[in-house]
């Protein structure tokens, strides 16, 4: 089960992901990110503070946007990952191919080039 909330803040779109991103729910995560790209948001923050679990289906969603993030020069930043979730990103090195920050403040700083 997954809950996704999107909030348009000052200069970025915030997508908060709560619960489990697994084989049955990753499609909802994908839709939220697809919409953000289709709406041409240049600054996208993904709040993973309450992301309890991620499987290959959830990782695959993030993986599938790595090319677009680069091609369209989108600032796409994940933050708030628990240690266990971050370790899952690290198994295949996806933590090195995505921008991951510790918390929202760090993510905002990265966005503003500080």
């Amino acid at each position, binding site marked *: 089960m997954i809950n996704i909330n999107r909030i348009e803040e000052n200069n970025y779109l915030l997508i908060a992901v709560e619960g489990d991103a697994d084989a049955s729910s990753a499609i909802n995560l994908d839709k939220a990110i697809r919409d953000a790209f289709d709406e041409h948001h240049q600054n996208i923050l993904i709040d993973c503070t309450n992301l309890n679990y991620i499987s290959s289906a959830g990782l695959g969603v993030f993986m599938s946007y790595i090319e677009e993030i680069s091609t369209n020069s989108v600032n796409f930043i994940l933050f708030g990952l628990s*240690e266990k979730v971050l370790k899952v990103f690290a198994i295949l090195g996806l933590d090195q191919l995505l921008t991951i920050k510790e918390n929202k403040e760090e993510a905002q700083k990265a966005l503003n080039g500080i």
Partner: protein
Amino acid sequence: MAYSFDIPSSKNKLRLMRKFVTDVLYSHNIPEIEVNMMVLAVDEVCANIIIHGLQSNPLESVRLNIKFEASGVWFEIVDKGDTFDIVNYNEPNLEDLIKKKNKGGIGIMLVKKIMDDIELQSTSDGNKLRMFKKLEA
């Protein structure tokens, strides 16, 4: 110690299996990070069986057995669906998947990175996949 759980053949039921595995592993005092890794590997294999092997047939189920040994834990996954030869599966290349904007293709890679041993026995009666994870003494 041995434990068993029947997973209904539905993606929506995978979270019940994850809770079962999590509870069993916590009861053996395994740390959270390790628990999550093992849960992930079992989840990937079961999702694969349910979606591809059993085509999400609601009349089918997958049996999961967990057995502890002194050196680690065995996860035994039994099903009667189409066989998937995980042991001899040629993994795709991560860079290619990224370039092609694929969303799939990494589940088995995760399983092989996490588990220390994987064995598959397939007969006309079905498939028995056994995965071993060493535990720190």
